[in-house]
């Protein structure tokens, strides 16, 4: 009986692993970035496929998370956003917080928050059902992904190298996203393409 139970359990686990990995497949570096269509804060719709030819940055965010606040209140992320959009890069904020959970906002609030913080992304995607977040395996806020002009995922990970909520650490840290964007524009291979993301857990519906 134990053997049968064991067999059944292993089969079940295998099945769960497969379904879990389908539901939450994490995209690989240098593979095509998963395609998505999202709703933006200004009520429009945005399609990744239509952005082909441009470098796209996806930034998971949650304005109430202390780690996000560290990088916004210090001006760190807004400054990188401004530089990036100036260089023709598409910077998309993604909010995957579910309704009723921390960081969930409507379009108007998202826009207001950005203007208050001096933030200037190309657009803010409202992903309250978490579908885009799960497609990319976004786990923390902030969590950043860079897609190159040919549609390949070239970076995934944290904003910088010191996981803390302390603003004083920003200057000491290596900014992975800045370095990656610099390397990309210089036509080089990204040296640290997959790094540890740190921050608050993304507040998915389940």
């Amino acid at each position, binding site marked *: 009986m134990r053997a049968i139970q064991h067999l059944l359990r292993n089969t079940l686990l295998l099945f769960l692993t497969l379904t879990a990995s389908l539901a939450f497949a994490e995209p690989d570096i240098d593979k095509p970035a998963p395609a998505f269509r999202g709703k933006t804060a200004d009520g429009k719709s945005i399609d990744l496929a239509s952005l082909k030819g441009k470098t796209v940055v996806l930034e998971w965010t949650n304005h109430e998370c202390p780690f996000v606040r560290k990088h916004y209140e210090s001006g760190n992320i807004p400054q990188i956003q401004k530089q990036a959009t100036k260089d023709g890069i598409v910077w998309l904020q993604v909010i995957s917080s579910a309704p009723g959970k921390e960081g969930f906002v409507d379009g108007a609030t998202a826009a207001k928050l950005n203007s208050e913080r001096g933030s200037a992304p190309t657009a803010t995607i409202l992903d309250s059902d978490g579908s885009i977040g799960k497609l990319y395996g976004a*786990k923390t806020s902030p969590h950043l992904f860079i897609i190159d002009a040919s549609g390949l995922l070239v970076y995934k990970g944290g904003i910088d190298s010191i996981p803390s909520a302390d603003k004083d650490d920003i200057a000491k840290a290596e900014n992975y996203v800045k370095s990656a964007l610099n390397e990309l524009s210089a036509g080089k291979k990204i040296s640290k393409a997959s790094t540890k993301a740190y921050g608050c*857990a993304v507040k*998915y519906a389940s």
Partner: protein
Amino acid sequence: MTKPRAIKGRGAANPHARSLLNGAKELLWTSILLVSSESAQALPDTASTDQVQARLIASIDAVYPGAKLQLGVNQRIIPNWHTYWKNPGDSGLPTTIQWRLPGGATAGEIAWPVPSRITSGPITNYAYSNEVTLLTSVTVPNTATPGSFFPIEATVKWLVCEQSCIPQTVELGLNLPIVSDGQTVGTGNPLIAKAQASLPVDTPWPITVRDNHNTTALQFGGPDLSSSKIAEISFFPDTWGRINHGAPQTWRPTENGIELTLQPGEAPVTAKQALTGVLTIMEDTDEGPIRHAFEVAAAPVSAHPAEKVDGEVLNLPSAIGLALLGGLILNLMPCVFPVLSLKALHLLRQAGQSKSAARLQGLAYALGVLVSFAILGGILVIMKSTRSALGWGFQFQSPVFVLLAANLMFVMGLSLSGIIKLGGSYTGIGNDLATRGGMIGSFFTGVLASVVAAPCTAPFMAAAVTYALAQPPIPLLSVLLALGSGLALPFLALSFCPAMQRRLPKPGVWMDTLKQALAFPMYATAAWLTWVLAEQTGSTYLPLLLGGMLALAFAAWLMQITRTSSLAYRRIATTLAALTISTPIAGVFLVADNAGFGSGQAQSIEKAANWEPFDPDRLKSLREKGQPVFLNLTADWCISCLVNERVALHVDSVQDAFRKSGLVYLKGDWTSHDPLITEKLADFGRSGVPLYVHYPAGKNSAPIVLPQILTPQTVLSAIGAE
């Protein structure tokens, strides 16, 4: 709380002051403390936030010069919130402690109690709920002055999360009196001992990590780890990215313990980046579940492509398929072929019989094979449950089995030579009886085929059997029965298919000649098994074995010459024959008691000029020195091993190449049971010999597994001499 709590705590914990002296000391401390308390300590030992109450505690109430003590930061966390382990998992931050200690004092790293896995949707964290004590060991300098104080200050930062996350920082302090060495130091806070008990310990058994890109497998355990008592097994990596934090972890019992399969993360293990972390095993006991936690630090055994074919990647259907194919091919192997030919001859002889009689014979043969394989499977299951390490052909590790098999081969030979007549099928007493006798004969021919098949390994079989041996009873039996089916299939097909029977050459005198000729492979097998026995046990068993053969031959001759004599003579002859045979049989039972697995195996390994006996420690030290090693795991009863040695390993060109490249040739003999060799085989996903591994020069070089059939060229090119 400026008044040192330590004294109070000590008083409470130790209410009966043991002696006047102790009482006097306390009085002394108290007075010292009263004098200095106003100036010395500014920081309280507790601090609270809305979510966490933190407290700085120590393992002793007073320190002395050179003392080693444990400091603890105890966190009491409100329900549903948690703080993080050293690897927080997918999000979160580990707690940090920044110590400020008097000059000369040193603090170690945080010793982290075992965390829990907290999962929310796709995010998995390793964290602490309710309460945790983070320990740090501190050494007091020898220059500390008794009579003064040892002030400790700590800045503790943590992230506490539920739905939201809040980074928090507190400052804690403790001011311990310094006494001189030998004086009572108090029992400290009991939470320290509690926290120490929750720390992972060193594993009692070796842990190996195997990484083959899609999975990372932890193999561990020993005879004391019974899978029936295990409720749950979990691994917590202490470094980000080594495994996918949230992926299911599956475990299964294997030949040598347990294998836990993990999904690699974004920074998977490599030879340089070992897998470190904590392994927890939840054990079911009568008093409820108990969690054991072990420290893990293991670099992966690099997986050579050759290994993958052999074990881990198989699933049940493909193992059954391979076993079936292996069984089919087994018919062509030198061990089985004579037996099968014999059976085919028998069928030919009875070619005139009805179709149904032939079919019944085929079925009886197949049944004989399947029953034998089921029995073998049953033995394997039982021995696995007692955690004996086994492999294919394990029965040949028992001298008694070898002895009996040698005698059986000898009798078979005698029968084929026509000296004795086995079975009643040729006597022509009547068709009915002949058919029945033939069926019993067929059944036992099936048994015989299975017995002689054991020391042979056909292509595809090794992988299937290796897979099967690591499985629970039902898959194990399925694979073995598939192997048996493969073995039985050709004869079964022949007996069911008159067209195939017609293709066989017509019966004639040639059959008798062939039958007599087939006696010689049987004698050869008997001679070989005699040698195996001598290698296993020295000369102890030889008189018994050879005496048994003599008795068998004598009994056969007696029966033969009295075949046509009167009943009285035949009775005398039968009695005499029975007596003659029973003497060596009694001898076997007498020695069987003290001749379990592997007695006297030491003799079989002597140090020869060109090789050294395998010893894991020797291998390890050679590897650490970066020396190249060639490992040969073999057994005297393994035919392909012997052939490989003769044609490929112990030839001058290869031996010269070994010497020239400074390679150390290690040879492990599995003729008798040897758990160290069984373990080494398992390291490479094998359950039986032969195994040839070349470890190239260099400490971390990846071992190269050679094929099971060798030529000098294979060996030379593997060691890079060509």
